[in-house]
């Protein structure tokens, strides 16, 4: 007399479905929420990593925000947004625009080549570009060859050019990602829209601004969030290329977090800076989402 096979009408709300998210949720709690909560708590304490935590309230937040080197590193991060986010998206859009308009022989090949930087490890990218930018590296040798001895310099050792130089590496890495995203996005735009535009007499540029761009809103939001976040939390590329130097000219907040936590034994202060950076990224991403969302 088993009643296993008796049909029971399904309740509207199935609690058993929660079972399916438990594994992921447990990981989320263990590796995201718990560390975040712990970092938040640590940020209100003075802690060298091994002794007792000493509660100091908001003091470390105040100290960090009053530290001119840290605030100027946040400014550097905003400058890097231009290189990591704005330029790659513009370049990606232009390439996507060209690729849909012009039939290029061996398109897949070029697409793969342009996407390549994206799949390289940042360490590999950093080491390679350090060589390219070196005083006797290929860039300077090339400039000298064309008689531009006045332009060639130790790019990563220059107080004026180090930040744009590392920024440009970011542009090189990120534009392939934006491009692939946009090319994929373009393919889902109904061809009728392009036909209609042609009938209305739209040229390439008008077609781009009136058909392609508005239909890529979703992809642009994704690209913006991804690249802006990377610009702000970026660490490895700059650590490898300049280490924040010369002086403090390429210092960014994540580098202070690392130095404080792992080199200076100020884990509490590092945590508070980590929380500040998290809030900053959260705010910027929210602004992007709010300002670019589709208005119904």
């Amino acid at each position, binding site marked *: 007399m088993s009643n296993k096979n008796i049909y029971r009408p399904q309740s509207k709300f199935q609690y058993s479905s929660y079972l399916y998210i438990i594994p992921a949720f447990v990981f989320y709690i263990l590796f995201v929420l718990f560390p975040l909560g712990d970092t938040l708590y640590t940020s209100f304490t003075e802690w*060298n990593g091994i002794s007792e935590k000493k509660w100091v309230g908001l003091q470390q937040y105040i100290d960090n925000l009053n530290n001119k080197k840290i605030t100027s590193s946040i400014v550097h991060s905003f400058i890097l947004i231009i290189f990591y986010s704005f330029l790659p998206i513009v370049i990606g859009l232009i390439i996507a625009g060209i690729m849909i308009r012009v039939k290029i022989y061996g398109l897949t090949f070029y697409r793969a080549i342009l996407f390549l930087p994206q799949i390289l490890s940042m360490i590999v990218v950093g080491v390679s570009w350090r060589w390219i*930018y070196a005083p006797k590296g290929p860039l300077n040798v090339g400039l000298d060859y064309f008689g531009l001895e006045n332009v060639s310099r130790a790019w990563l050792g220059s107080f004026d050019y180090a930040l744009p130089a590392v920024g440009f590496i970011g542009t090189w890495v990120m534009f392939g990602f934006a491009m692939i995203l946009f090319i994929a996005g373009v393919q889902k735009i109904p061809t009728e829209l392009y036909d209609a535009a042609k009938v209305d007499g739209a040229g390439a540029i008008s077609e781009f601004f009136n058909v392609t761009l508005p239909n890529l809103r979703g992809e642009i939001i994704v690209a913006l969030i991804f690249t802006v976040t990377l610009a702000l939390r970026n660490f490895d590329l700059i650590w490898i290329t300049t*280490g924040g*130097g*010369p*002086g403090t000219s390429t210092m960014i907040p994540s580098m202070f977090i690392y130095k404080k936590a792992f*080199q200076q*034994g100020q884990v509490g202060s590092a945590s508070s800076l980590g929380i500040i950076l998290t809030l900053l990224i959260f705010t910027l991403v929210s602004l992007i989402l709010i300002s670019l969302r589709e208005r119904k």
Partner: protein
Amino acid sequence: MKKIVVLLSSLIFFSTGINAETLRILAEAGDEATLTRAAAQFEAANPGVTIDASYLGWDDFMATIKLKLADNNPPDLAHGNQGFTVDGTLVQNGLIISLEKYADQYGWKDLFADGALAEFMWSDDGSTWGSGSLFGVSPVAEDVIVFYNKSKLDALGLSVPNSFEDFENALAVSKEAGELPIILGGADGWPIIHVWGIIDGAFVDPNHTRGWIFNPKNFEFNTPSRMDAAKKLADMAAAGYFGSDSLGIGYDDANAMFINGDGVFNLTGTWMTAQLDEGMGDNVGAFAMPTSGGSSVAGGGSFALGWHISSKASNPDLAAKFLAHLMSNDFVDDLMEVGRVPAQAPTIAPTSNLQAEVIASSNALVGANAKTFYTDWATPGMYDVVTQELQKLIGGAASAEDFISAMAAESLN
């Protein structure tokens, strides 16, 4: 029942062995050759003892050493790093033990001049540095001296300088002849600390500098002689003595360039001896920088990373016995053979011309009590401040006055 007793007792006998013991060591990777040799010798002399050494590269080692020693199962013997950031924290948290007992037992303090081991001495609560109990030892000296390209110096008609002013003249002559006077890997920041240590030492009383490093809050950084040193470094950079690209060149690249014939002088540490020897042979020489006026010598430097015994070590006596082996007179020649500069006088002849000159330079610094450690030891934040400010000074982005005031401000942190 009898059988069980026999079985148990034989198990206990075989599992403990006669003297079976393992000494666990965690070391910075630079000491691998030294330790491999010492471990083999120690194991041979102490049957039943096994040395289990593991190594981490500098960055990984420094980032994790405090956590490893705070662990419930830490290594018995480990390197630290001089200063409040590592050694001070280890003492403050009771993670390493005082070596006073062993220093008396093995006579470590008698090996060196009075106060020479001050960099390993702490008050028992770890709040003051430079005096108190001995918490570490090292058999290796690391000095910052001047290496030079012999054929270039000859071709320029110059000889080894007798005073800092002589050295400056040599720089001017080199520059005039189209040579790069000093090769510097300034992109890494820390190599400039070595250059600064030498120039600072040429002008400032070494006692004052050491006092400042141990106690930066109570020793004035901003003294007239130190301002002279800062201005001198700024002038040297402005005169192009480091070339125009030094901030774009890393330390390893700079040394490779020096080996390949770039630069007349290379101001760096004795840890480079083996590499320069191999790369340049008889074409490289070394001297300790003479001070301004030439009455003494100047240079940064200290012992190498100190050895500490964990407070949780299962057999601290065994760990100390191994340290005694490293510190013993017998081991001095082994240090020479693996390319380190021993802190005690060696008994064998130097293996090369360069090693002879390096040891002479090192002896000159020790004899004049002139070693001034490293500027970045002074405070936990000093490494960043001094590297950044020195880059600015060398790159012309800050004046000597800016440098001195930034350093004086960090001294109070």
